[in-house]
């Protein structure tokens, strides 16, 4: 809510104008029954035709003025809501950019996307409707009651009873049905999940010949959805009949009370009609209000979700010292480092100690889930380690500014992510003002030059979203090239050549080795052949260090490494043959 108020405060003028003009319009509408009452009492009873024409003209004039006010109000409401939506969307997107991996993992990217797009739209629409209707309806309701009292205080008593009753009916029904609607939505999600799951596993379902069971399962979910929908539908279908009864009881009371007043001579026939008209106006407005409440509750739910994102504070902020110049210090050193993911009891990494000098290459090997990628993500400070110390060029990484670290560290994850746009634009992610030569040099090292040239579009080669027009291996090579363009001091290849065949992978490693003498390289892989030439090899097993040394040392001493080698042993033999 505070966020919304803040965005509204940016344009106080716009925001105030819409409800103001709405109220002006409504006041003119409230005058109509009075004019009609005058027509009946002053025009018809004494048979004054010209008076009727004058009053009729007055009605049209009221309509014209109301129309003008109303259009003005609509414009300001739209303008204000759109401005609020735009500001909120911009701030939200910018806020998400400050999150560290920890927050991104916790919320999930698909959720974040929904917040920025759908939820902000809901808020914008809801706010627009709020400005247009929410103030108008109560104003008309109260105004109609006030007008009724000015007509005749004693005959207006039914209003005092009817309005609270109406409000209560609406309130109770909304209160009862909203949680039920939520349940309907949840059940619909389950139906969706069933369909999705079935489609994704369609081969397995058929392989096990389980179609009939799947159908039964789906029937059950769909049946449950039906029951919930009909149940909540039955409750909300009470709204119209009940409000209708309440208002007509009010009209009956006006007739009964009004009859007595008119008989006594302190109320006219026209005024009775005016009172009845006010009562009908109230009904129309309250029904609108009820619909609006449903719409607003959706917008409020969206606003709540948007706010939850705004309230999430990044656990790592972009503050701290710049990375110090490389002197006689190890480029990266881990001192008894441990790390646990948020919400997890078990440490994904523990007791990791090693250090690498500038220009050295370190290989990290281990099975699935051994913690290799986790370790890689600690170096650019995507996560902060939970115990021990990591140093870059001798400085504790927690004192360094993340953006400065990332300018010095290039990381290529296993899943190559490219963005729609030209190849040049993608390559310049690594260095904003990278020249053609710099880019081509990086493409050369990454073994990507050949296929880029074969497409004959040079750096203007258009890439589709997520590199849809490239093969997995091509994407990986471009992702490596993109990291190389920035000429980082530290390069981390996190299983980033997994889609390359062995020969290309080998050429790639050789090229990196020969053309980047001072670069510290982390090679993370499951393949022994990829890391056996590294200066140091760290063997990880289930998050713990299982060995550290050169290929030969580990072959002699490390049981896990021996097993990994043995499992890929055929390769060793073949390589020796070849």
């Amino acid at each position, binding site marked *: 809510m505070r966020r919304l108020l803040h965005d509204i405060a940016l344009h106080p003028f716009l925001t105030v104008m819409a409800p103001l003009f709405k109220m002006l319009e409504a006041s003119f509408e409230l005058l109509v029954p009075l004019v009609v009452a005058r027509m*009946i009492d002053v*025009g*018809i009873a004494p048979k004054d*035709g010209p008076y*009727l024409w004058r009053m*009729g003209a007055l*009605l*049209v004039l009221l309509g014209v003025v109301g129309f003008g006010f*109303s259009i003005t109000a609509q414009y300001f409401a739209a303008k204000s809501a*759109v401005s609020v939506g*735009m500001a909120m969307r*911009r701030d939200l997107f*910018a806020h998400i*950019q400050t*999150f560290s991996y920890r927050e*991104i993992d916790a919320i999930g*990217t698909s959720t974040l*996307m929904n917040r920025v*797009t759908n939820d902000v739209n809901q808020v914008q629409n809801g706010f627009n409707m709020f400005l247009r209707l929410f103030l108008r309806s109560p104003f008309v309701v109260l105004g109609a009651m006030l007008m009724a009292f000015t007509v005749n205080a004693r005959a207006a008593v039914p209003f005092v009873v009817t309005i609270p009753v109406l409000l209560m009916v609406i309130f109770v029904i909304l209160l009862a049905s909203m949680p039920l609607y939520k349940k309907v939505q949840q059940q*619909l999600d389950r139906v969706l999940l069933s*369909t999705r*799951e079935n489609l*994704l596993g*369609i*081969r397995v*379902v*058929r392989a096990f010949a389980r*179609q009939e069971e799947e159908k039964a399962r*789906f029937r059950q979910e*769909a049946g449950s959805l039906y029951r919930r*929908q*009909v149940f909540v539908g039955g409750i909300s*279908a*009470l709204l*119209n*009949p009940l409000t*209708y*009864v309440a208002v007509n009881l009010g009209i*009956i009371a006006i007739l*009964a009370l009004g009859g007595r007043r*008119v*008989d006594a001579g302190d109320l*006219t*026939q026209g005024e*009775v*009609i005016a009172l009845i*008209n006010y009562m009908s106006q109230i009904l129309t407005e309250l029904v609108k209000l009820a619909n609006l409440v449903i719409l607003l509750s959706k917008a409020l739910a969206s606003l709540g979700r948007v706010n939850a994102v705004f309230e999430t504070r990044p656990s790592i902020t972009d503050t701290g010292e710049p990375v110090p110049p490389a002197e006689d210090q190890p480029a990266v050193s881990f001192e008894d480092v441990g790390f646990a993911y948020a919400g997890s009891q078990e440490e994904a990494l523990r007791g990791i100690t090693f250090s690498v000098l500038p220009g050295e290459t370190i290989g990290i090997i281990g099975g*699935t*889930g051994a913690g290799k990628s986790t370790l890689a993500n600690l170096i650019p400070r995507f996560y902060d380690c939970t115990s021990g110390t990591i140093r870059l060029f001798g400085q504790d990484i927690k004192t360094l500014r993340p953006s400065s670290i*990332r300018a010095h560290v*290039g990381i290529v994850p296993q899943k190559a992510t490219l*963005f729609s746009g030209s190849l040049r634009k993608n390559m310049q*992610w690594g260095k904003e003002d990278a020249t053609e030569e710099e880019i081509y040099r990086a493409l050369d090292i990454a073994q990507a030059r050949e296929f880029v040239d074969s497409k004959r579009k040079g750096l203007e080669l258009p890439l589709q979203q997520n590199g849809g027009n490239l093969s997995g291996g091509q994407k990986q090579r471009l992702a490596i090239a993109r990291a190389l363009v920035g000429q980082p001091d530290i390069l981390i290849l996190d299983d980033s050549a997994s889609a390359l065949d*062995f020969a290309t992978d*080998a050429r790639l490693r050789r090229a990196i080795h020969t053309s980047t003498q001072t670069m510290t390289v982390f090679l993370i892989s499951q393949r022994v*052949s990829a890391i056996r030439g590294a200066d140091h090899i760290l063997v990880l097993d289930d998050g713990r260090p299982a060995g550290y040394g050169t290929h030969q040392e580990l072959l002699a001493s490390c049981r896990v490494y021996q097993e990994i080698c043995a499992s*890929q042993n055929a390769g*060793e033999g*073949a390589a020796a043959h*070849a």
Partner: protein
Amino acid sequence: MRKQTDQAPGGRARTLRRVLRCIRPYSGLVALSLALSVLTVALTLYVPILTGRGVDLIVGPGQVDFSGLLAVILSILISVLITSAAQWVMNHINNQITYHIVQDLRGRAFNHLQELPLSYTDQHSTGDLISRVITDIDQLSDGLLLGFTQLFTGAATIAGTIFFMLSIDPWITLIVVLLSPLSFVAANFISKRSFAMFQRQSETRGELTGFTNELLGGIKVVQAFNHQTQACEEFDAINRRLSEFSLKATFYSSLTNPVTRFMCAVIYAGVAIAGGLTAIAGKITVGQLSSFLSYTNQYTKPFNDITSVLTELQNSIASAARVFELLDAPPAPAEPTDAVVLRHPKGEVRLEHVDFSYTPEAPLIQDLNLSAAPGQRIAIVGPTGCGKTTLINLLMRFYDVHSGSIKVDGHDIRQLTRQSLRTSYGMVLQETWLRSASIRDNLAYGRPDATDEEVIAAAKKAHAHSFIMRMPEGYQTVIAEGGGNLSQGQKQLLCIARIMLCLPPMLILDEATSSIDTRTEIHIQGAFETLMKGRTSFIVAHRLSTIQNADNILVMNQGRIIEQGTHEALLEKNGFYAQLYGSQFASED
């Protein structure tokens, strides 16, 4: 993207007829609902007349007919009570009809998905199919519900109002009937104008969503390259454009209400003047004038309702067309009535002169011949796209061969029941699929009647038992959607355990251990050995080390078998296989 044909009037009418056919089973309820609707409308319109009559009994001091007033009040009370009860029952019936139809349609769509050939589901994205079963049917239900509740009621209200107005005074009625289409026309004019703006808005919104999806999807890369500022700037540019269109679209569309209200005010003034003059002439009473005025106030509402229902219905029909398109997709050919049930097959598999392709333009498998003796282990290797997975699709009869035949134990598989053929194979794919249910239920997917002991024994054989026991609730742990709480390797182990429990007579392993690290693979290799003993097995693997002891290695390239033999024989031959094998282990020196 909706197809143009769905929008064509002929197609639309056909779709509408089919929607009506779906309603037919509920025609009794529909008739009841319509009857109640007529009753509700008639009574709702009758009340203003009663109120007007009440007003006429209150003329002035000393001129109030109290006993008459009491009678009027009683009539109003009774009408109102009946109306509300009828209205509720009608709404309830409408809900039942609509949601029943939705349930029927969803059930039919889902059942149909189970019968469709895989060529259909492979060609359509999962998202598209889901949106047909969920979103489109939902849209249809919204349209139906609105159609039921408002279309008929609206029309009845218009007709009823005109009838009641005519019964009071034809001339004033004429004024209303002549003037009211004005507001209708004006509203239509505005909605046509704002439609263009809405389209620009939704295009730009689509652009923004695309950008957001791409940049937030790759947010970790954005951060790794310190690209946040540029990302925000680009976002802002699209955002600004969006808000320009949004402003126009919102403003134009929000003009409808003021315009209709204004038109309504004009008609109201016209009726007040004409009615007043008629009253002076003594042709109608003041009470009748008041009834007239309240009709005028209500009269434009059904027009607006009908307009919004019609747009909603248009969307619904487009959605219905998409649903019907799914339902019309021809199901896989029915089994012949004399289909043979394959029982305890020995596992002799022969492929004779098999031709197959997914699209006629790109022939894939041509004249493929292969024979596997019972218990043999057949490995299939070759570069990506050579047809390995296609071969499995054919063996499982996910797709039918174009020519030639596949025989199991001498039966052409097209003569066998699909169920008995498929359950004779145990299949482990690279793409692991588990459902969001407990681990136990997942393992017992192929044999729901398995005992706990059997399930645990299978899990132990697949080396999955120890990590399952480390899960918070062991075998009862519920797997998150998409297996979110498991690693890829763990999911693969569960899929292997699932097969270990079924012990089918033949096996298909398509990259079954690709996500398991080589050390664990060695451990479960033993289990696979036991499993494969005496069972005809087809193994696809890119790690050649895992298939060296196969009885027969098929080397495929471009849909053909180019070499076959044992590992040693193929190395000896020094052909494609030997090359593939060598490249896998090329070292850097």
